[in-house]
């Protein structure tokens, strides 16, 4: 898939396979499939394996979802259990979905 300007490039920071992190990934996957079909890409970063990466994106809380594209950068922290808030945080307008 070749990314274009409309695409969502998302990065999910986790720290090991904790229930919270697993839940966040499952929630994210579900929301993306439903509302951003074919318009998203998810990168997973496990800070337990790559601790140095936490500084770059100013990660503090885990899990943190970073919307790298489209700009500006947005962050959503937590297990992403509230779909409406995730969509609001990602600035996905439901009308155009």
């Amino acid at each position: 898939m070749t990314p274009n300007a409309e695409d969502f490039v998302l990065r999910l920071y986790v720290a090991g396979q904790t229930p919270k992190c697993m839940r966040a990934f499952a929630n994210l996957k579900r929301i993306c499939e439903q509302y951003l079909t074919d318009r998203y890409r998810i990168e997973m970063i496990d800070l337990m394996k790559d601790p140095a990466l936490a500084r770059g994106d100013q990660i503090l809380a885990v899990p943190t979802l970073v919307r790298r594209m489209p700009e500006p950068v947005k962050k959503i922290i937590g297990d992403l259990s509230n779909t409406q808030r995730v969509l609001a945080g990602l600035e996905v307008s439901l009308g155009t979905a």
Partner: protein
Amino acid sequence: MQHSQPTPARGRAIRKAPTGVQGLDEITDGGLPLGRPTLICGGAGSGKTLLATSFLVYGAEKFGEPGVLMTFEENGEEIASDVASLGFDLPGLVAAGKLFIDYVRIERSEIEETGEYDLEGLFVRLDHAIRATGAKRVVLDTIESLFSGLDNANILRAELRRLFRWLKDKGLTAVITAERGEGTLTRQGLEEYVSDAVILLDHRVSEQVSTRRLRVVKYRGSHHGTNEYPFLIDRNGLTVLPVTSLGLKHEASDERISSGVRELDQMLGGRGYFRGSTVLVSGTAGTGKTSLAAHFVDAACRRGERVLYFLFEESAHQLVRNMRSIGIDLQPWIDTGVLQFRAERPSRAGLESHLASIYQEVRDFRPSVTVVDAVTNLLNVGSQHDVGAMLMRVIDYLKVSGVTGLFSSLTSANSSYEETEAGISSLMDTWIVLTIDEIDRERQRTLRILKSRGMAHSNRVHEFALTDSGLRITDGRMTS
């Protein structure tokens, strides 16, 4: 439990990490609790960041303990430039691998919260920084900022509790700074979590004179001074002025040194002042206080001893010129470096600054004689009570260092010397009063020893003259 060195008198004396901050290690009996967190709280601009940074810099430079500075309010460059004026080279320490600075920025506007989270990211970053440098010391400045960046206070509190325990488990000596709250030590009640040691900083400005004070509010398991100690921030870093007399540890010397005036030595039990004692010379303007000091200085320099002379009323040049008129030439001593002058305007700095600078100069120059001319100039920059307390610290410091101190005191013409010297004279070992009177159109000068501890001394009023070969005491009047 870590095995600690057996200490004879106290069985469970806790181990300390020295801060390297002048004075603070004396107050805390050795430093901050080793391997435990310490809370430093105070209002904005009270010096929290500077104190915390000093702890890291000295740790890395003097004690071979690398450190991590996790900063939440200013970035690394800002902090580096803030402390550069204290002579701290943060970029240099970072480059040498002795310091790791991580700036944690929380932009509330770009963060949405949904569901459960923890602060594992913070732990990961801290852990990474600690491993990268082999850190033994950690500073979190000011971690409370998290509360304005994140909504869920319950999670934050639980995570901070976990963080402090984590630091303790790792055996790190940590400093956590926090803003002072209304009626509480910190805004977020961090004192509940960090209970081993709490230091409170305070910065007040009254009558345009700024004073900084430090107090150890709490120190579990350790003896510590409980007073408010003034401290100073200048090019030498941070200096806390302790009351060293807590234990009156200095030993009184039996050695005697000449006042520089033979007759006066005779009056002082035949042998002059005690070494390491303090001498007060008071009198109205023009009575010869500085001349008496100059004799003392000259005599010390002749013995090859170093002399540090603080003067507030005139320049060193002026003083040297004036003393030549009574046959004392101090210039050669200046040239060879045994005599150093520090001329300062009393109004330019606060009381703390003056006394701290006396303290620092004495520490650095290590004189055997110090003159403060005139100590009354300091009265104008602080209340009588403050001056007394501060002076006591300086005198204690001189005594502990074995330095003989001569303080001149200007008595105002329309008040008695008892009034001017209230609070000062009791600190002095020897008190000499000079007077000048106009009698039969002739100036008559007198000298009297009001007290001199530990020696038999003259109780008479002696006349003296300032001649071109110095101060000459005559035994004119026999009664007092």
